[in-house]
């Protein structure tokens, strides 16, 4: 066995990994390997299976079949989080696993604190010294006594990395680590990653940002639809090629080319040079009645922030907005009364009130129409709920069921349904089909098409490229808080959008 280890010299080797959660295959026959001290990027579209592969490697979920070897040791089908940690596999979360009120040292040595010999109390001085030693050893700009709460997100990530190093990790996994970092912080993180490589630690890096993958990686594995499509060596890494591989098969299908079409209805919303500090800069566009305006771009590019500002949740620092030609200052309550609707991302956190019935969830958005002076009409509220249940085909069709008990697709139908019973003019939609089944997805698309046909202006933010290109009449691409590209007419492919999102606007690699 040990001879083989020397021969292969691989840090991690996965072969023929298969995984399905209930029914459809999420990963099919995936091979994946990491060398010692390599920076390896894992790329793929949303739903390609990246997260699932990571979960399998870190023991969060178990594979159905296939073999896994880590540092020459076989990992059985019954893998676990704890086992992964003991082996030396660490995942860097953005901030979740740190305790905010504690110091860097306390977090690093949590449950492993050095103690006095006689009285088993924690030796704080020794702990701080030990922590500082580790920090200095890697040359990080941190103090052992810094409190996590007072650190920037980038610094917190550094502490996470230290924690991994302190537990003798030989594989560090980072899932989109730069999505909330500034460019300076990003380059600091890259320095750290390179330092890890020098120490012989393997770094598995997941990112949608092509320039990062291009700059940083020794190798790249591309996943598509749950299969491995390519492993590229350093010399072969080319952002345009990677994008082609990620989109791949669908290019051959007619569906991947979408004709954009101009809508010449009345201008419903005109946005002129709006800016919000640290979120987005100088955004201008207009939406016509009956138009679906898609907004593409990477997570963190300012898409959601623009929607939130226009709906009136967050303030706009400068610039102006016009609604049917008249100046308009957004504010949530007025927005709703005037005919705006908002379908937020992260349904469970922002969209639904889980413990409350379908009726209650729908009623709260429609208080203005079901209220007569002071009192709410239960009868009207119930009839609105029944109407929404009918329009969206919500199952079970029982208005009294708590929304938290519904399936993901039906929960989302409630979130959409509560707007359909209003006199809607503009609908903001943010990642409407994340985590819902295909059937519900199709119904959602039909609903948006019907709304558009009825003259509602829709602004759609989506990371799901097939969804974005299929539904939109026109597509804006945001990058780093600015509009970097508009696809207004003619043909658009998912590849075009992804290239623009990654900053490869005019075709050539950088």
């Amino acid at each position, binding site marked *: 066995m040990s001879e083989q280890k020397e021969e292969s010299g691989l840090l991690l080797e996965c072969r023929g990994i298969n995984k399905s959660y209930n029914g459809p295959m999420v990963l099919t026959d995936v091979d994946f390997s990491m060398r010692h001290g390599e920076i390896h990027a894992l790329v793929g579209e949303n739903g390609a299976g990246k997260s699932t592969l990571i979960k399998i490697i870190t023991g969060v979920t178990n594979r159905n079949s296939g073999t896994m070897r880590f540092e020459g040791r076989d990992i059985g089908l019954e893998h676990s989080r704890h086992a992964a940690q003991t082996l030396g596999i660490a995942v860097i979360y953005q901030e979740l696993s740190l305790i905010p009120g504690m110091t860097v040292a306390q977090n690093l040595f949590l449950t492993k604190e050095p103690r006095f010999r006689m009285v088993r109390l924690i030796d704080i001085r020794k702990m701080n010294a030990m922590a500082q030693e580790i920090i200095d050893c890697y040359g990080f700009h941190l103090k052992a006594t810094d409190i996590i709460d007072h650190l920037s997100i980038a610094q917190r990530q550094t502490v996470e990395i230290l924690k991994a190093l302190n537990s003798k990790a030989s594989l560090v996994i980072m899932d989109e680590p730069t999505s909330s970092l500034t460019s300076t912080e990003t380059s600091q993180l890259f320095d750290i990653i390179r330092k890890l490589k020098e120490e012989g630690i393997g770094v598995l890096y997941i990112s949608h940002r092509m320039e990062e993958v291009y700059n940083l990686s020794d190798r790249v594995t591309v996943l598509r639809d749950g299969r491995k499509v390519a492993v590229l060596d350093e010399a072969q890494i080319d952002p345009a090629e990677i994008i082609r591989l990620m989109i791949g098969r669908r290019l051959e299908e007619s569906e991947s080319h979408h004709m954009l079409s101009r809508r010449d209805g009345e201008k419903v919303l005109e946005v002129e040079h709006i800016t919000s500090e640290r979120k987005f800069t100088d955004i201008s566009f207009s939406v016509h009645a009956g138009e679906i305006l898609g907004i593409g771009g990477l997570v963190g590019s300012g898409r959601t922030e623009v929607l939130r500002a226009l709906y009136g949740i967050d303030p706009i620092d400068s610039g102006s907005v016009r609604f049917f030609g008249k100046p308009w200052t957004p504010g949530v309550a007025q927005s709703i009364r005037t005919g705006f609707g908002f379908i937020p991302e992260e349904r469970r956190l922002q969209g639904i009130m889980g413990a409350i019935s379908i009726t209650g969830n729908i009623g709260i958005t429609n208080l203005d129409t079901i209220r007569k002076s002071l*009192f709410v009409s239960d009868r009207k509220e119930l009839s609105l709920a029944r109407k929404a249940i009918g329009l969206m085909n919500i199952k*079970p069709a029982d208005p009294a*069921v708590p929304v938290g008990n519904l399936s993901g697709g039906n929960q989302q139908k409630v979130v959409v349904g509560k707007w359909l019973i209003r006199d809607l003019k503009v609908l903001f939609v943010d990642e409407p089909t994340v985590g819902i089944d295909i059937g519900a997805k199709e119904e959602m698309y039909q609903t948006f098409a019907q709304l558009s046909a009825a003259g509602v202006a829709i602004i759609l933010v989506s990371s799901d490229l097939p969804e974005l290109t299929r539904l939109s009449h026109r597509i804006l691409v945001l990058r780093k808080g600015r509009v970097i590209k508009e696809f207004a007419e003619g043909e658009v492919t998912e590849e075009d959008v992804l290239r623009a999102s990654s900053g490869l606007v005019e075709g050539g690699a950088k």
Partner: protein
Amino acid sequence: MKFDRAKVQRLIADSRLFIILLLLGAILTILSPRFLTIENLSNVLWSVCLIGIMSSGAIYAPVTGGIDLSVASNASLSGIIAYELMNVGHMHWVLALAITLAFGVLIGLVNGVLTTKFRVPAFIVTMAAKTYLFGFAMLVSNGATITIMGPPQFLAIGVGKFLGLPIPIYIMLVMIIASHILLKHTGFGRKAIAVGANEVAAKLSGVDPDLTRMIVYSISGVTASVAGIVMASLTQQAYAPNASGYELDVITAIVVGGTSLMGGNGSVAGALIGAVMVGFINNGLNLMNIPASYQPLVTGVVILLALILNQGIKMPAFLRLLKRA
């Protein structure tokens, strides 16, 4: 009509607390022949009316996921303020009570502003309020126990009777019914529940969570003040620790009544049932001549049993619903 299993389950779930109350009543009837008389039952209602009045307004804080621990201090202070205005300041009793109530609103509003605008947890804000309001009451009353001799209209609030029942019972019933309507049938009630269920989702639906919470604590303040006035009239006394400890009885009534301290639901009728249940236990123990030193122990255990029974019936139904979805 079609037999709808889910509906039947919900009906049982909704009325299970009332069933527990009836069970308790049945047990006490068997244990003591003097329990089930109109006079005794009216005594029980009378004994819980202050808790009932306070609960009618204090329930909104847990509905929004908060808590109000200042209601008892607020009530004691209100009694003292009413006395000072009427008997020392020689103000007309109606005006004096109006000002007292306005003061109650103000106390609640301050709690609300501190929790929303300064982001201090409600537990801490109202805990502090409990202490400083007590301090303020000590200052105003010079730490003395004041005996209130009049005016007769004021004393009638607490000791008067109408159709054979004490007036405080009517005040409690009116306030419980009004609060029930406010919670279940007005926009404000819906907003309070929504804020407790998911503040972000509520905000995106056009609810102003801060404004809602400020109103919530103001309501809590004014009902505490009403209770304080009734208490002063009933006991013909005003002193700083007059209602001391009532805030926990109020929370007990609300929680036994099925309102979650996590927010997002609430039952005013349940809170009344909760209060009556505690009243039943105390009354039953008295009737059975059980020494006072045993009573808190028994009360605590019975409350715990009621809560477990309440949960115990809810869990399987909840699991079945999940499976169905």
